[in-house]
């Protein structure tokens, strides 16, 4: 029994030896990072990655700004956050270690929708139908916790009055 067993072990190990030659020259199995949709948020049609660095080019596709960006100073550090105004929504950024990140996106009117088609004026049931039960349901608002950000809907008489994307400061 012992010889038989040892032979089988040696045999299968020999087999394993052939595999590396074949596999290694062809390279690591090509698994592109599955884009799980939690990592992205969208303003109308344009998609952004949560936690990405924000530069002038990042905001360019969003169209013209309706007014000059306003600054948000902080107590001691010179890195100032900014509030950009666009038609239908506003974007707030903050600065950390010299890099600018998204801090908040605030929908102002129904000309812009979320990636699931919810706009200002949608009903509470439409929101729940699209996003399911909220993580944090309050009298005037529903909050959905996602990776690195919160999705917040404000209501008055069961109609969405505001939509906010709030990003966690890393």
């Amino acid at each position, binding site marked *: 029994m012992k010889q038989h067993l040892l032979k089988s072990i040696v045999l299968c190990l020999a087999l394993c030896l052939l595999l590396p030659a074949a596999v290694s020259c062809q390279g690591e199995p090509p698994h592109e990072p599955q884009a799980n949709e939690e990592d992205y948020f969208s303003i109308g049609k344009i998609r952004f990655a949560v936690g990405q660095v924000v530069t002038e080019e990042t905001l360019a596709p969003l169209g013209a700004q309706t007014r000059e960006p*306003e600054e948000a*100073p902080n107590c*001691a*550090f010179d890195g100032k956050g900014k509030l950009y105004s666009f038609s239908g929504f506003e974007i707030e950024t903050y600065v950390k270690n010299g890099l600018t990140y998204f801090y908040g996106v605030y929908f102002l009117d129904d000309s812009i929708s979320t990636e699931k088609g919810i706009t200002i004026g949608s009903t509470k049931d439409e929101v729940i139908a699209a996003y399911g039960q909220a993580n944090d349901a309050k009298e005037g608002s529903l909050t959905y916790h996602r990776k690195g950000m919160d999705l917040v809907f404000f209501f008055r008489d069961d109609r969405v009055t505001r939509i906010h994307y709030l990003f966690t400061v890393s």
Partner: protein
Amino acid sequence: MKKRLKILLPCIAILLLLATALVLLGRLVEPKYLTEQKEGGLVRDYYKETSSHDVLFVGDCEVYENFTPATLYRDYGITSYIRGSAQQLVWQSYYLLEEMLKTETPKVVVYNVLALKYGEPQNEAYNRMTLDGMKNSLTKWRAVLASMTDEESFASYVLPLLRFHDRFGQLKGEDLTAIFDRPTVSYKGYLMQTGVEGGVSDREGIPLTDYTLPERSMEYLEKMRLTCEEHGVELILIKSPTNHWKYYWYDEWDEQVKDYAASHGLTYYNFIPLCEEIGIDWNTDTYDKGAHLNVYGAEKLTVYFGKLLQETHNFDDRREDETIKTEWNALVDAYQAAKGKEK
């Protein structure tokens, strides 16, 4: 036994030497906050004080940039000190107050309520600026424990070297000259801002889903009130005037502070609606578009607040007090000179 001592004593001596070396190295590499980011030097300036004060301010940038002790003394003879620091959290204000009340008993303590909105530790940099300035004491260690974010370690507060050792490669002149004695960076806690960058913002604050002030903040506010009561000191709550969507003071918060003040018989002044009466002009009296006042705005606010204090309390006029006159007049002259220079 003697042989053992011959080894034990030198070893103990070496360990003591090691401890002192680590402390000294810590003082060498820790940021001195003398030229840039002076906010980091505010908390330690207090230890240069030699006399007591009638009024003590505690709080964040809305006290140390909006009130000037020099003006209070010059116009009303009231001696005061601002123990403020950048984004000073409620529990830090409480522990700083507790530390000061150990050595002096003022008539009035003034606390700016903006920081009530922060219920848990916010930011390592601000924590360091506030806490590293404090002298080692039980109060400091309790303040550190209450303020630490997850990434921070208690050991790095005991030995600043553990946190700032990588500054070794970028030491500046001031790091060497100011290892032990560090000059003050403020006028009795007031950090002068002489820039002018006005602008009237018609924007409202961004709506929140929950306006209730965090329980932990109210808990430490209550502790502050009890400590003042215990020492026979009157606690006055204030909300500094600001006119900026980022530092927006929501009415719901105002209500809660009003209710708290009323239920405990405290005076609470919200200066935002009183801006006209105080004479604040948001085009000239601010250096960052309405978030904080500059020295001209602070002058107006202090004059107004001084009048309020005099009407409601009877403070002795310390301008005649020989023991402190020279020191305070020197402060007023330095303040006037620095203010005037910019005019």
